[in-house]
């Protein structure tokens, strides 16, 4: 069976055929020029177009055929449904349960394994490894990291055909694809901005997304540097406030808090007609995980010299663990598919 349900495939093709005869929205984003290069819209084309769509929402209120018109054209929602299907393996609920269960399990295991007294004892300057041993921590996160990487790799390997072009993209296309992705040029409603409350276009979503993405990157960098300190230089955590891991982590953490809270609020207030329920849920779940990761990380930094440290550390680790475990099955995957689709777009438009 194809990854795309026949009824959804038919609806996608129907809508793209109408858009292709209309083309009024061609200035908004990459989806429309990519569509204009096609006449047929099979699952492979639909998956590619769906991953080019950033769900800025501009093309719904602008559509002269939007519901309740009898043509009932809703591009953002239809592409959102197709997009979720394009990288969805198990059901959404399973994923959610998986995340919560693994985080809970880890919490229990760690709490049980840590003597009550050590947990709430005052640790000198935040001696993390008195709470959980260094080796134990490394083992846990090697496992979680491997789980996430293998899972993401599997999902991408199974579905990459959806977004990858037939021909090899040249260096220029790769550069343009990355540049479009890093600047989120397609999340701008063609310059107007995304559609937010009361169908008012604004750039806030794009800005919050930048906070989340670059915040995440900064935290990731902090982790890499810390791992380097730990494994190569043999410097053990906790690191001083003026050290690189703490600076990157703090900046990234604060950016994540701002970005996740902002995107979450926009998503909650947003017209539900603009996207698929499943994709909305997945986005919210990822935002909650990222927010919680950043929040507990920052709390840990502030209170690492107090009796709360042990508990905060375990909470933080549990959340990070849960995040890692759910990465391959949630909204996080959109990044890889998006970049692949944008590179393909750059290479298709280039010739």
């Amino acid at each position, binding site marked *: 069976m194809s990854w795309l349900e026949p009824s959804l495939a038919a609806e996608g093709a129907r809508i793209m055929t109408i858009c292709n*005869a209309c083309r009024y929205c061609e200035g*908004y984003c990459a989806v429309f020029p990519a569509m*204009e290069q096609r006449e047929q819209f099979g699952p492979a084309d639909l998956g590619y177009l769906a991953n080019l769509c950033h769900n800025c929402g501009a093309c719904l209120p602008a559509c002269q055929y939007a519901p309740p*018109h009898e043509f009932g054209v809703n591009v953002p929602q239809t592409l959102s449904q197709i997009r979720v299907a394009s990288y969805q393996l198990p059901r959404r609920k399973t994923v959610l349960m998986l995340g919560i269960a693994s985080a809970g399990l880890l919490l229990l295991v760690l709490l049980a394994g840590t003597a009550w007294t050590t947990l709430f004892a005052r640790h000198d300057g935040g001696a993390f490894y008195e709470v959980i041993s260094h080796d134990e921590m490394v083992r846990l996160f090697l496992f979680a990291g491997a789980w996430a990487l293998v899972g993401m790799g599997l999902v991408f390997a199974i579905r990459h055909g959806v977004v990858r072009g037939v021909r090899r993209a040249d260096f220029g296309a790769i550069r343009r694809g990355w540049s479009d992705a890093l600047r989120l040029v397609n999340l701008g409603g063609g310059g*107007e901005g995304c559609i937010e409350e009361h*169908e008012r276009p604004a750039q806030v979503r794009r800005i919050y997304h930048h906070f989340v993405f670059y915040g995440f990157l900064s935290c990731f960098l902090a982790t890499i540097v810390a791992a380097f300190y730990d494994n190569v230089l043999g410097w053990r955590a906790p690191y001083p406030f003026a050290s690189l891991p703490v600076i990157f982590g703090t900046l990234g953490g604060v950016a994540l808090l701002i970005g996740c809270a902002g995107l979450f609020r926009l998503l909650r207030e947003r017209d539900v007609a603009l996207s698929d329920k499943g994709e909305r849920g997945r986005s919210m779940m990822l935002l909650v995980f990222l927010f919680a990761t950043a929040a507990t990380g920052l709390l840990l930094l502030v209170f690492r010299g107090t009796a709360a440290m042990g508990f905060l550390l375990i909470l933080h680790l549990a959340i990070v663990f849960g995040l890692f475990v759910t990465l391959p099955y949630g909204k996080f995957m959109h990044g890889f598919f998006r970049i692949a689709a944008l590179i393909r777009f750059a290479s298709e438009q280039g010739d």
Partner: protein
Amino acid sequence: MEDVLVIGGGNAALCAAISAAELGARVLLLECAPKDFRGGNSRHTRNIRCMHDTPVDVLTDAYPEDEYFDDLLRVTGGETDEHLARLTIRSSSDVRAWMAARGVHFQRALSGTLQLSRTNAFFLGGGKALVNAYYRTAERLGVRIVYEADVRKLEMTDGRFLAASYVKNGEAQRVEARVLVAAAGGFESNLRWLREAWGPAADNFLVRGTPYNMGWVLRELIDGGAQMIGDPTQCHAIAIDARSPKFDGGIVTRLDSITLGIVVNKNGDRFYDEGEDLWPKRYAIWGRLIAQQPDQIAYSIVDAKMQRRFMPSVYPPIEANTIPELALALGLDPHALKKTVDEYNLAVEAGTFDHTILDDCKTHYLTPPKSHWAQHLDTPPYWGYPLRPGITFTYLGVKVNEHARVLLQDGVPSPNVFAAGEIMAGNILGKGYLGGIGMTIGTTFGRIAGEGAARYVMA
């Protein structure tokens, strides 16, 4: 008592309401459509024709005043008021900045498929995005908007407007105002009215735009003493896919395959030279041609050689491997269609096919001839599309002066009635059509009317 009453909710009405509100007038706007379908035919538009002497923002090259005016003269056969036409054309040169300041975004020039970027500026997202932006701006300026307010009656004495009555949720309402801006479009949605001019044939017409332009306001103005302009029996109609909705099918129902094959009526006979002239120029005659055929239906037929040469249409072609099979699929007599195609194929002369110019591929001793792009219809699969006349707009309107004031029977302007948009477009576009000029007229006269109305109440 209101200050300014604007009737209509499309481009012209919104430009008037915004202009009046910006000068400080209190404005009430009555739109008969529900919110989801607000914006009249303006929601189906995509560009505005603008003069410019050098390349500017989204427009390439130059499109000077005289060339614009010559184009207008050509399509209208001289049925235009030169003074009003030149005023409109000149005002189109800086209209984009005004529009942009009120939320309209334009598409960058030369984007992909568009060749029109010399003469026309394209709205980002099309006319509905433009209408949405104007409604937001109008609301921000404090314009009060009532949807589903169907104005049926105007009270006028000696050409002076007193009050309007409208129906909302089945209840009649009366509203007095000091000045009226009438911007309620033409009467193209009023099938009964169209029947007066076209007879029962009108029942088979499809309306490309809004179902709400019933012409009540236009008729009330005329009954109230306004001078008429434009041919009341004429309308702009093109050939569209017969499977389109009765109303609001918009742009996607048009079909560009006519010049690439043959067109037959329900008897399977050809009835007009499909290759008479380049497509954009001949675009508008096919509505009328099909309206004159039995049952107002026709069929465009092309073969596999031509299938990639026209804009994809929204409905799938009806496909068959032989001409008789295609005839059956289209509901035509197979023998009749076979005979027509055979005669046509016999008459086709060899030439060098080039769809972008008036090439030398034509028929020999055939009535009607096909004078260009004639190719043998011989390569299966064959594609057929059913066609019907699709009305874009009507020409009848009220006469206005350069202040957008409605002129009364004696030629004197009404003290407090202004008109803008399609309801007065006949002053400039007596017949024919120039792509994008509808929005130019509506924007120009909407602004003039709104400013005039505000000055009137502030004086």
